[in-house]
């Protein structure tokens, strides 16, 4: 009996140990950037010397900064207008895309989920296909239409196609399908119009689906590389994701600080919306 207990306890310890190792590996980059942005240039030069000036040996690191300093952070916040310029570009793109999806994708998902619309199945399949296609497949067609509309090299060239991306339609659709039909029926019997049902029942009971879609889309917007890379030319219109790689390694402390500040908004959204993120991921896999 005792040895079984011992084995069980050992198994549990091993589980926790393995998980802790992997969890530490996935979290390490965040930790690294946080530390790096608090390190002074002198300290960084000392650790990263072999990387920066190609001397012998290897770059090293300290778990915590020996002499924490906010110098790079101060420089970033008070003396780097270009960082904020690009930061606001990213925010404008994100806001535009999320707003568009709220205005167009949300009603579309509701209509698709709750009404006997002709061609419903075809449209649903189309949504899934479009959301699965990698950007490279639709790159040429998006370029052609944006060129035609004269929108290339403006933030709209990123916002408009993004606003109509079908991914969020799909996520919201899955959640809207879960609302029981009896609720809608009884509201109709009480004389509620379709618009009222949408606002009072759809928006309220589908709220977690809407949030899931928005959280997933927010994270996507902050990582966006492919679209701005091909549709934008003017430097001042670039989002943060294309600015960061330009901050050269010879300003290592500043570069680390920029990288860290740039990940704060999505990590913050992740922290607040993790449950919605999980639900959104599962919406693609679990039949309700």
């Amino acid at each position, binding site marked *: 009996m005792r040895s079984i207990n011992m084995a069980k306890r050992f198994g549990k310890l091993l*589980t*926790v140990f*393995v*998980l802790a190792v992997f*969890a530490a590996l*996935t*979290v390490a*980059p*965040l930790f690294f*950037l946080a530390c790096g942005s608090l390190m002074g240039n002198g300290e960084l030069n000392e650790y*990263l010397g*072999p*990387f920066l000036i190609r*001397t012998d040996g*290897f*770059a*090293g690191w300290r778990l915590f900064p020996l002499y924490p300093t906010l110098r790079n952070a101060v420089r970033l916040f008070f003396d780097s207008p270009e960082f904020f310029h690009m930061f606001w570009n990213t925010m404008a793109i994100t806001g535009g895309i999320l707003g*568009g999806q709220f*205005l167009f994708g949300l*009603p*579309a998902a509701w*209509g*698709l989920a709750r*009404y006997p*619309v002709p061609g419903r199945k075809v*449209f649903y399949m*189309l949504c*899934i*296909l479009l959301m*699965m*296609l*990698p950007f*490279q*497949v*639709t790159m*040429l*067609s*998006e370029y*052609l*239409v944006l060129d035609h509309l004269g929108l290339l090299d403006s933030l709209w060239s990123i916002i*408009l196609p993004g606003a*109509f991306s079908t991914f969020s*339609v799909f996520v919201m659709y899955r959640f809207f399908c879960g609302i029981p039909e009896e609720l809608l029926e009884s509201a109709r019997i009480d004389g509620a119009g379709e618009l009222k049902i*949408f606002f009072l029942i759809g928006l309220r009971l589908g709220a977690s689906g809407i949030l899931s879609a928005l959280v997933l889309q927010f*994270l996507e917007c902050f*990582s966006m*590389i492919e679209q701005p*890379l091909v549709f934008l030319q003017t430097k001042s219109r670039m989002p*943060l*994701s294309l600015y*960061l790689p330009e901050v050269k390694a010879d300003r290592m402390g500043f570069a*680390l600080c920029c*990288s860290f500040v740039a*990940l704060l908004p999505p*990590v913050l959204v*992740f922290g607040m919306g*993790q449950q919605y*993120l*999980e639900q959104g991921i599962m919406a693609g*896999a679990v039949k309700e």
Partner: protein
Amino acid sequence: MSPSRKRRKAAGLLFLLPGFFGIAVFYLIPFGDVVRRSFVQAAGGRFCGVSNYRTVFGNTAFLLAAKNTVRFVLVCLPLLLLLSLLLALLVNGLGNKLKTVCKSAFLLPMAIPAASVVLLWQLMFDLHGFVNGLLGLVEIAPVDWMNTKAAFAVLVFSYIWKNLGYSIVLWLAGLASVPESVYEAAQIDGAGRVACFFKITLPLMKPMIFTIVVLSLLNSFKVFREAYLVSGNYPQEDIYLLQHLFNNWFLDLSVDKMAAGSVLLALVIGGFVWILQRSWEEEG
């Protein structure tokens, strides 16, 4: 048809229309144009049958990129699925509080923009970088990660780091969908934990496994971000993916090749989506 049903049909169409209009303008109509362009010459616009497709299949860059992309998927998918299943099984045995902590940790990379980790990737995989420093501790000679065949391993690592949490969450959902009572019955019959896993859990999760495979496959295209940010338009030969190729075709304005390539890729992906849809229908 009853008048109320007719009215509801109209209401549904009104909800759907604005979104559908945008999708048609930005995706459907222009893609139709791309399909048309894939059958005409880029210069002059004369119909040329499948000659664009022939050019694509005869293009060495395309063959290299296609080979690399397939190889990447064939290495990454099994690795990601096995590792995430293993971790999901471990996480599943934890109490609720630890479970949440673990999920947060594994999902975090999804929230970190590719551009923010590029610097760290460079520091790690440089000839004088962290990884070689650690390898030096166990007397392994340094590797020039980004400029040799090892670049492939960096890409695989990057993909797994980013997608581990996503797959774990999916596996956990699958594990939770197996009713507890099935396990209890099996235990009464004297089945061990390993037998339970292979005889009950895996078979019951079969439709789920399929979904996870397809979703992970489609996510694998996004690995281009890290690859591009770390090594630009022309990376080490082994990690030159279809995504790089399309980007370079775009820069060269090779509209004919791009059009044919887009249609081909869309057909392949469409095939996967069709399979996925079939498995969903079986499930439901």
